[in-house]
């Protein structure tokens, strides 16, 4: 059975750099586009790094900003000042 975690984001201007950051930092992530929504699956662990997002958008970024464009997720959340991660816990 799959051990994927997933993150679903709105397909909008604010989420695009997040998706790009995820693709940079998670080599195994697969990005699927649905109407108005993007679903990103990744085996075991998926991380969104503050540093990568900030480099892409050219301003400070707080990982809690992800709440605004988040649609759904699966996995255990690990959140701190520098990243937002989803992990399978086994």
């Amino acid at each position, binding site marked *: 059975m799959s051990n*994927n975690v997933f993150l679903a984001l709105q397909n909008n201007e604010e989420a695009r750099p997040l998706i790009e950051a995820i693709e940079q930092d998670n080599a195994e992530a697969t990005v699927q586009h*649905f109407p*108005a929504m993007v679903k990103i699956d990744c085996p075991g662990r998926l991380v969104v790094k503050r540093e990568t997002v900030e480099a892409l958008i050219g301003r400070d970024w707080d990982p*809690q900003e992800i*709440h605004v464009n*988040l649609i759904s*997720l699966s996995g255990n*959340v690990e*959140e701190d000042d520098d990243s937002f991660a989803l992990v*399978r816990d086994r």
Partner: protein
Amino acid sequence: MSAKRMNLREKYQRMTRDLAWKPSYQSEDDIFPQAKYEGIIIHDWDKWEDPFRLTVDAYWKYQAEKERKLYAIIEAFAQNNAQLNVTDARYINALKLFLTGVTPLEYAAHRGFAMSGRNFPGAGPQVSSQFQSIDELRHAQTQIHTISHYNKYFNGFHDWRHMHDRVWYLSVPKSFFDDAMSAGPFEFVTAISFSFEYVLTNLLFMPFMSGAAYNDDMATVTFGFSAQSDESRHMTLGLEVIKFMLEQDERNVPIVQKWIDKWFWRGYRLLALVSMMMDYMLPKRVMSWQEAWEMYFEENGGALFEDLARYGIRMPKYWEVSVKEKNRLSHEVWSVFYNYGHAAAIHTWMPDENEMAWLSEKYPETFDKYYRPRFDHWHKHQKKNGRWYNNTLPMLCQTCQIPMAFTEPDDPTQICYRSSDYEGMQYHFCSDGCKDIFDDEPEKFVQAWLPVHQIYQGNCGGASVPEVLEWYHLKHGQDNLEYLDSQDRANWLRWKGLTEKAEAVLQKAANE
């Protein structure tokens, strides 16, 4: 010099745990009288970890931003008469189902989480429950506000709150939430946060909202995704509450497993309404119910339960039955609605040729064999003798309250009947899952308000369909019956300047 900024962990500590206090005038047992009777043993409430570490300042900031975005779109939608841009007026019936069936549940969740926040002795779950209670109120309000625009143009939206308490199929979602809210706080959060939101909610919101996007209903997409952004936090709370109970004491494991079994099955039966919405009510379809079940339950739910295996938790009982039913569920449910379309607050119809082709393609093992012949028969009957409605009221399942129309797990040609005797009376069920739930708490479920029983007992306005419809606040010939003959459709053709032929071409194009 200003003080060093607190990091997330410190801030969370200060603004949740540090705001709590130990009572001295009254005992904790008196203040939190519901904390122990369910049998859940908690040794240390401070072990509760909120993975999101959301504090009230951040909460208001992000929620305000979500609201600003949402209302900008709702306004633009109304100003541009965007209700005219949806694929086809049949789509509007999915919104009617949502407003009468789902929105009142948001309000019930608002009340439920206010109660669980009051009844949990720990500061962590008090804070998360309080946020969720406010979220749910926001969801109810934004949904009512968004959909009110459709009420100006289409029938069936006018008295959704009244209908939720009375209409036969709406007793399915209503009784689901009443069951959860009349349980204790631990069962309530297991039911709603874990079993419904974590395991199943993706199947409610993702197909509804993707469906809205596919059918060009931007307003619904927006309130849906705005609500869903809170939902991610709720799902995380759901997983946290389960892990917390399981880690606190091993005696909690069998209680939690029993609740997971019960609420998986209750939630799955409730989603039967979503299955028919996906496969029959969207003029332009996103994915089939079967595909959604495979993606969101079998794959994703499977991974989740593997995570929980180390606590001694297994997959919910009868999950295999849900897999066996995945290629017939929506067809069986839409058939029920077609039978009773004269007593529903939505319009019903038979899928056209293109839609039947889509159903055959998506359900190669079942559609042509079991359902197409039935639908062909109804089509022919409608052409020759007029639309057929079933004037005999159906038997309902005592637990899920859905008409007994589901088939045997291993025989799609045989209706599944189960029954139990309790204090000299016989009770009927649609499945082993519903029978087990009753058998565990018969004293609760014998009290169920079953719409068909109530009609026959004379409690619903009278014995005839028009009298019952009046009691539902439905206008016969306007809010109910066949879509093809409806005022909604006549208006739609007029507003869009469409001939019937052009309508058929557009409907065909939506499906390609």
